[in-house]
């Protein structure tokens, strides 16, 4: 409360008083300076000091820094000095000087708490002096009345010092709680102003009235006293009630404080933990009962000790260190687990929390210590560690690999066996590192199983392989269960891994053994069985189920005898009894399957003892193959003997005539010949005694022979069904059953599929047909019938109805047929393929011979043709090749060159006529040069490739005429140009054509009086270009020679030329696929025609 009162004190009164005092000082000073001096004003020095003192008072707040205090101290010393100086030298009135001293004293001691009363007295003295001074002015007391005029201070100074005094008192209240001097705020507020103001006012009123002689002096005093009594009585009465209320309030507050302290004491004493107040030196100041209980010392004993005395020596240094830190202010509080030494000498573990309480000045006052006895907890912890250590010992001594995990999964313990087994440090395996030691194939499965166990709440059981330190993976059976605390909370997974590699190996080998035995038994070729004395099956192989058709369950219920019927049944019963008696027996009997078939078997039985039960183990072997082989052997013997007895089988001569006469294809028939076909087919008839036929590609019979009684009678019967004597009609009617089977169902199918056809024929047996190929072409088919005729009555009846034949006849025929063993039929089938190949080869060879004959017939023509082509090629003038042309030109150049040199450089020495001859030499050489050039062009035509494109002949002709323009312009010439259609040609070569033809026309019209050349096209279905002239022409009998190389129809002296031009034209035209020809008449002109495309192409385009 003390503190809070201080805090409540507002600085405003002080600041207000100081500010007004300073203002008064400044006012006086400024008026003094301007010269308007008055008795009311302060003297200059006083004003200055008042300002300084006011400022110092204003500064002197509670939170003033040291520098400010020093400043104020300085100011106060100045004031004191000024006061003493003024007093001794009478610079200011004595009252003012006194006040200056007082104010200096006040300021000097203002902050000293022990000098509060001195300051207060000084301030009061200052205030009183000032009040006195002010009152002398107010009451109009002459200055002389209070001594000399120098004594009295000016009114403004009085006011200023009054304010300063009051301000100092306010400051005291701020700083030191001066308010305690009075009973309460109420007294201060009400009585103090009244105590000052009322006497002052009443005094002034009485004096004023007396001066006016309103009443006598006695009456004045009377009135004054009466008024005082009245006013103060009222004030005291009013104030006392307020004081009463304040006192009540204070008592109530004090009561609450005491209550609070009592409660605190109770809490302190009865706290569950030990609480203590400890002096900074470590001595116990106050302790509660709990501490005495913890440490064993009584309160009195403790208060004579320090905490250092009972702290375990090992913990003391740490504690003291922390204490120092708290005192130094580095930490506010600390908590420490430490040991005290109990009075009985035992060690007490406590959890100590210490905080420091500082006094008002911030010095360490005392420590508050909270002490919690944790001895029991420590004991439990120790026990827990011990328990865990024992667990590890146990775990490490178990043969299994033991581990624990936290509920979340990471492993937190692995037994030493695990470490030893894996050879990897524990720290690398804790958490989830152990997972790396698992076989890669097992990791995911283990994780899944683990997660499932965690999710389901079940224990974990998983088998996986773990890598041993030497790299070997061994199998472990891993089981883990949850460990729960007393609340059922899972605290750990406890798991163990048991090496089960050997167990698994044993299981696997047992399984292999069992599988081996089962497989071995099942692989036995015959029947395997173990039966007991009553004939029940104890064990058997799959063959028994497969062959008998009984299921496993059925065999389980029946006895061995159930597989036998009739005599065999009693035979087997006897032999079983014999085997049990003598130890071994065997028998041949028909093994009857579920569907009633009886298969001949040879059975054996041997007595053995299995699991203390006497039983019979044995095997059954299928002897039907042996029996069948025996029967086949018998039939082969029969066939061999039959051949010898009966000779060749008769064939051919069917009643309906020879079907080969209807053969129009005749490829096979003519190529192979009837005789060879007959031999081929007879082979099958001898072997099988059924039927055989050879077909052409179109189904015509190359050969058809029906032999045996069965086939012959069936064939005839179905032929008669057709009701005609004409085999051709019968073949087409569709009722000739045997023909239909033979051709449509067997042979044609084999041809269409290009593969053997093996069918059941309509006549009750089988047909086998293969296609006949000549090269890649299928040219026919060959087939034969085989198999036993039917004997069962249903089939006989059906056949009899279909073929319109008596059943008895069929039965008789069938009986006459001796069955052929299967291998004979297989043999026949293989041979049939060979026969087909033989026929095919013969046809092929025949065809080759034919084509060779044809080839020979045309050979002569071909040779002629080829020879002509060769001649053409030779005549292509390829010999005018590069090197020849090169070499031919060189001598010409020499001839011309040297002739020229002679003619020009040696002209003077030449005889007459020599120049002319030299000119001829040169002329000839140059002519030869042209010839070579033309021939080169010509020969190049064959080597040059054609670049055919759309060309405008008119443009080409323009270019040609340009080249020839010198001659054209020199001549009188009528040139007629008809419009020409576009053509497809090699532009360069086409130009050569036109150039040759046009220069020819120019050349041969040279002697005409009216030369006329026409260029045009006969565009009537075919584009025929032409050049017509009215020149010398030629006789049509030489037309053939016209286009040959070096062919000339005119003498050189008449018309120059090399004779290559038209050959070149023809070569170009021919290369375009067109043709060139000429029409002429001697001396009547000539026309040259040409086309640029083959004739057929023109037609096609049109």
């Amino acid at each position: 409360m003390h503190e809070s009162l201080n805090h409540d004190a507002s600085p405003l009164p002080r600041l207000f008083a100081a500010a007004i005092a300073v203002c008064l000082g400044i006012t006086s000073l400024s008026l003094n300076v301007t010269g308007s001096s008055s008795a009311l004003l302060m003297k200059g020095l006083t004003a200055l000091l008042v300002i300084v003192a006011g400022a110092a008072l204003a500064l002197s707040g509670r939170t003033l820094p040291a520098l400010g205090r020093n400043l104020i101290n300085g100011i106060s010393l100045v004031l004191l000095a000024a006061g003493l100086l003024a007093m001794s030298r009478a610079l200011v009135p004595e009252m003012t000087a006194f006040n200056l001293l007082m104010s200096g004293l006040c300021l000097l001691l203002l902050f000293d708490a022990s000098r509060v009363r001195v300051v207060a007295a000084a301030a009061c003295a200052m205030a009183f002096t000032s009040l006195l001074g002010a009152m002398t002015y107010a009451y109009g007391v002459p200055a002389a009345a209070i001594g000399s005029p120098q004594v009295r201070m000016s009114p403004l100074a009085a006011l200023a010092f009054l304010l300063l005094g009051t301000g100092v008192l306010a400051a005291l209240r701020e700083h030191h709680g001066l308010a305690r001097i009075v009973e309460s705020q109420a007294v201060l507020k009400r009585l103090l102003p009244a105590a000052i103001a009322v006497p002052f006012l009443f005094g002034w009123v009485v004096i004023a009235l007396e001066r006016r002689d309103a009443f006598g002096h006695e009456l004045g005093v009377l009135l004054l006293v009466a008024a005082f009594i009245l006013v103060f009585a009222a004030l005291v009465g009013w104030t006392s009630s307020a004081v009463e209320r304040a006192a009540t309030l204070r008592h109530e507050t004090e009561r609450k404080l005491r209550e609070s302290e009592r409660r605190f004491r109770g809490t302190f004493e009865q706290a569950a933990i030990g609480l203590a107040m400890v002096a900074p030196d470590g001595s116990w100041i106050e302790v509660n009962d709990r501490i005495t209980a913890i440490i064993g010392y009584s309160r009195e004993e403790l208060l004579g000790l320090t905490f250092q005395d009972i702290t375990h020596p090992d913990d003391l240094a740490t504690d003291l260190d922390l204490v120092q830190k708290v005192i130094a202010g580095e930490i506010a509080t600390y908590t420490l687990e430490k040991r005290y030494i109990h009075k009985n000498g035992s060690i007490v573990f406590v959890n100590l929390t210490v905080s420091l309480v500082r006094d008002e000045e911030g010095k360490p006052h005392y420590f508050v210590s909270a002490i919690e006895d944790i001895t029991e907890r420590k004991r439990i912890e120790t026990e827990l560690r011990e328990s865990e250590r024992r667990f590890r010992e146990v775990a490490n001594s178990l043969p299994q690999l033991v581990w624990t995990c936290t509920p979340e999964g990471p492993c937190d313990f692995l037994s030493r066996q695990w470490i030893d087994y894996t050879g990897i440090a524990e720290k690398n395996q804790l958490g989830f590192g152990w997972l790396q030691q698992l076989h890669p194939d097992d990791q995911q499965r283990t994780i899944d199983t683990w997660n499932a166990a965690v999710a389901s709440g079940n224990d974990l059981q998983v088998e996986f392989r773990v890598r041993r330190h030497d790299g070997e993976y061994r199998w472990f059976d891993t089981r883990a269960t949850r460990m729960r605390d007393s609340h059922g909370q899972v605290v750990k997974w406890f798991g163990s891994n048991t090496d089960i590699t050997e167990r698994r190996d044993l299981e696997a080998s047992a399984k292999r053994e069992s599988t081996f035995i089962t497989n071995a038994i099942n692989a036995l070729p015959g029947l395997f069985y173990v039966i007991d004395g009553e004939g029940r099956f104890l064990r058997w192989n799959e063959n028994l189920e497969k062959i008998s058709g009984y299921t496993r369950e059925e065999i389980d219920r029946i006895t061995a005898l159930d597989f036998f019927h009739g005599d065999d049944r009693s035979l087997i019963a006897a032999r079983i009894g014999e085997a049990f008696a003598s130890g071994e027996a065997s028998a041949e009997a028909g093994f009857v399957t579920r569907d009633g078939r009886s298969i001949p078997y040879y059975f054996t039985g041997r007595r053995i003892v299995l699991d203390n039960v006497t039983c019979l183990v044995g095997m059954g072997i299928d002897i039907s193959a042996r029996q069948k082989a025996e029967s086949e052997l018998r039939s082969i013997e029969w066939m061999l003997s039959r051949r010898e007895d009966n000779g060749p089988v008769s064939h051919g001569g069917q009643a309906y005539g020879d079907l080969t006469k209807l053969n129009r294809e005749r490829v096979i028939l003519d190529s192979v010949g009837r005789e060879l076909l007959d031999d081929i087919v007879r082979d099958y008839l001898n072997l099988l005694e059924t039927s055989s036929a050879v077909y052409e590609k179109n189904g015509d019979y190359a050969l058809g022979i029906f032999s045996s009684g069965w086939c012959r009678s069936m064939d005839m019967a179905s032929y008669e069904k057709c009701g005609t004597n004409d085999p051709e009609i019968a073949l087409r009617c569709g009722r000739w059953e045997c023909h239909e089977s033979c051709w449509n169902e067997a042979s044609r199918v084999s041809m269409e599929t290009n593969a053997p056809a093996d069918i059941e024929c309509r006549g009750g047996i089988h047909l086998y047909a293969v296609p006949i190929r000549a090269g890649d072409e299928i040219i026919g088919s060959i087939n034969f019938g085989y198999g036993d005729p039917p004997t069962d009555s249903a089939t006989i009846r059906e056949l009899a109805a279909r073929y319109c034949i008596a059943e008895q006849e069929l039965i008789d025929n069938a009986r006459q047929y001796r069955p052929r063993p299967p291998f004979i039929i297989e043999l026949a089938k293989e041979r049939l393929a060979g026969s087909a190949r033989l026929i095919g080869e013969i046809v092929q060879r025949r065809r080759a011979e034919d084509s060779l004959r044809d080839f020979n017939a045309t050979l002569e023509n071909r040779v002629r043709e080829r020879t002509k082509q060769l001649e053409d090629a030779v005549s292509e003038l390829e010999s005018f090749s590069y090197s020849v042309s090169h070499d031919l030109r060189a001598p010409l150049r020499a001839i011309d060159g040297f002739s020229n040199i002679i003619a020009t450089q040696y002209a003077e020495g030449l005889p007459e006529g020599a120049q002319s001859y030299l000119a001829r030499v040169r002329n000839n050489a140059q002519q030869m040069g042209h010839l070579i050039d033309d021939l080169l062009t010509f020969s190049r035509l064959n080597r040059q490739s054609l670049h055919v494109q759309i060309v405008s002949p008119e443009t080409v002709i323009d270019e040609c005429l340009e080249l020839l323009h010198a001659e054209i312009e020199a001549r009188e010439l009528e040139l007629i140009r008809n419009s020409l259609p576009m053509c497809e040609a090699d532009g360069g070569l086409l130009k050569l054509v036109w150039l040759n033809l046009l220069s020819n026309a120019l050349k041969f019209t040279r002697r005409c009086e009216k030369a006329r050349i026409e260029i045009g096209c006969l565009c009537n279905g075919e584009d025929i270009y032409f050049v017509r002239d009215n020149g010398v022409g030629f006789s049509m009998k030489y037309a053939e020679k016209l286009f040959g190389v070096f062919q000339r129809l005119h003498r050189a002296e008449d018309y120059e030329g090399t004779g290559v031009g038209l050959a070149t034209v023809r070569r170009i035209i021919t290369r375009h696929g067109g043709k060139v020809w000429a029409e002429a008449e001697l001396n009547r002109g000539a026309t040259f025609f040409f086309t640029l495309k083959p004739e057929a192409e023109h037609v096609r385009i049109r």
Partner: protein
Amino acid sequence: MYGSVEILLVEDNPDDVALTLNAFRIHNLSNRIQIARDGEEALDFLFCRGAFAARDCSERPRVILLDLKLPKVDGLEVLRAIKSDERTRTIPVVILTSSKEERDIVEGYTLGVNSYIVKPVNFDQFIEAARVLGMYWLLLNTPPATVSVGDVS
């Protein structure tokens, strides 16, 4: 002794040599002509080998007239050798041949020949050709600086 050579004429036919020299003489073009009778001799001269080992190789003819059909090393081979060697690459080469074959012309230009002239059979035309040739390559054409070293010295 070869320092003054302006034209290297590579020609095996003595007639053609005579005619060519005659043609040049008529026009007073140059008497500083070196004749090579085959391709090998031409290359020996140009690269200062064999019989020409003593020659100053920095002296280069201003133009080479080259026939194609030559004994030992044929004209196109000679051309290839000239145009693939730094020292001779810049010497202008004119093929002077009787061949009009397109493939020879194409091959010649492909190898970098500077001009291709077919020897005319007509001597008048031949003389004219020689004149134009000499006029162009010896008088009008400006060879690269390295070639002129010989002239300066």
